[in-house]
């Protein structure tokens, strides 16, 4: 019944949209990404998590096909969120059994095509990905991935020089954080008396965000496996 509904919806969308088929778009996007075997990128990472005050970090991001990704703070310390491997867009398309592709049409007010990808493998970790594709450049501007175990990730990209490889100049990665609290008996905090009573759930299940602004990519020059360890 559900399937019939989705197929019906799919048909409706395909016929109602004047442009090309969603699958073509996805293939074009994928083709761009396929050009990249590996990269090493320099950038600055900003962490925005409600309970963490962190400085801007100089990071290097390493990628290697199919799904190896590593964010390294070369000198200092950075809290790297779980699931940060998803900032590599290729990760969306890794699926042995392919997807059902659903075209949802254009986002109101922008030129972005919303496409939903449903993995055919029912046991896949990713349950659903929604991508917002720029139909001129064939790059993904936004993506939402819902996973079985780790909640929902959101990506937002802006592109510049490296758009032909589908690589963003700026990525912002949003993720769910669990609540944070340590007993005062461990931390022996200094209580300066200024703390106001906050609602108990303030620190619970908030969205965290990291933002990486890349300054340069070195593409397809080889990356040793050792960096991913």
């Amino acid at each position, binding site marked *: 019944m559900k399937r019939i509904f989705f197929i019906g919806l799919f048909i409706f969308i395909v016929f109602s949209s004047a442009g090309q088929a969603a699958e073509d778009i996805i293939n074009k996007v994928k083709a761009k990404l396929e050009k990249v075997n590996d990269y090493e990128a320099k950038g600055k990472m*900003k*962490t*925005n*998590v*409600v*309970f*963490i*005050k*962190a*400085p*801007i970090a100089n990071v290097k991001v390493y990628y290697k096909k199919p799904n190896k990704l590593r964010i*390294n*703070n070369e*000198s*200092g*310390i*950075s*809290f*790297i*969120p*779980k699931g*940060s491997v998803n900032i590599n867009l290729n990760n969306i398309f890794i699926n042995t059994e392919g997807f059902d592709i659903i075209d949802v049409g254009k986002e109101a007010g922008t030129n972005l095509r919303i496409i939903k990808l449903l993995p055919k493998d029912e046991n896949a970790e990713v349950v659903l990905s929604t991508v917002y594709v720029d139909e001129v450049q064939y790059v993904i501007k936004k993506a939402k991935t819902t996973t079985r175990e780790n909640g929902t990730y959101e990506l937002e990209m802006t592109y510049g020089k490296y758009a032909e490889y589908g690589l963003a100049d700026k990525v912002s990665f949003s*993720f*769910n*954080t*669990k609540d*944070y*609290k*340590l*007993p*005062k*008996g*461990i*931390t*022996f*905090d*200094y*209580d*300066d*008396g*200024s703390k106001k009573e906050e609602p108990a759930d303030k*620190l619970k299940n908030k969205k*965290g965000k990291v933002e990486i602004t890349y300054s340069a990519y070195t593409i397809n020059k080889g990356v040793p496996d050792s960096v991913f360890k």
Partner: protein
Amino acid sequence: MWKLLKIELFKIFKRPRTYIAFGAIAAIVFLIQVALKFDGKSYVDLLMSNLSGSFEFSDEFKNKLLNGYLICFVILNTLLIQMPLLVALIAGDSIAGEANMGTLRLSLTKPVSRTQYMLVKFAASVVYTLALLIWMAALALFGSMLIFGTNDMVVLRSEGIEQMKDFDVLWRYVAAFGYAAVALTTVSALAFLLSVFAENSIGPIIATMSIVIVFTILSEMNIPIYDKTIKPYLFTSHMVAWKGFFYVKADAEGTTINGSIENLPAVLRSLGILVAYIVLFFSTAVWVFRKKDILT
């Protein structure tokens, strides 16, 4: 005055008991450093267990986290609770010990006013406290920096995590040690005051420790009726304000502002309260001592 101070320092640093404190600090610092050197990862896992659901911690991360700056913070956290005992050991002895030895009466028949005598005695115990802190800084901070290296510093609070860049840490330690000096001088002034009333040094040392322990328990307890009524007036509540130098400000996006202190006015207010306590304890001690009949 300077000559008299030199005499007092000479007397303090000629006594074997003076070095107990230096030995104790070296031992504690060394034990913490050894433990964290060999089993630091489990310590980090323990600290980070709360976060492991949302973040991934590589071995490299753990190694970087466990740098000299953090080690020193951990040491200060444990040691500054014990330091009052070591400070009281000398300050509590300064008048009572002379009374006990019988040298007080001879000293006070010398052409030195009692106020002057007290100033010199107190100054000497402050110098001792500073020496102890410098010793601790050398071992806990510079020692740890040598053994563990330096990196960005992460401070865990009960409701959040403060992270600062490595270049933004050392000045905070200078400020924190300076603050700790004032905090310990408060304990020293208390022991000094109690020392005036006693004829042997055990009494003031134990009394000082008891007061510090009771006050610390009250300061650390989370009982709402004490929070606003008693806590703000206990000097022990303000003794931990050195940590305020490691709490940073962040911009709207949660990015640490380099060189910032989250609540400097609160730290300064705490400092002011400690200084007020020092003045109170010391001037009471002088006032009592000036009128005291020396019967020992």
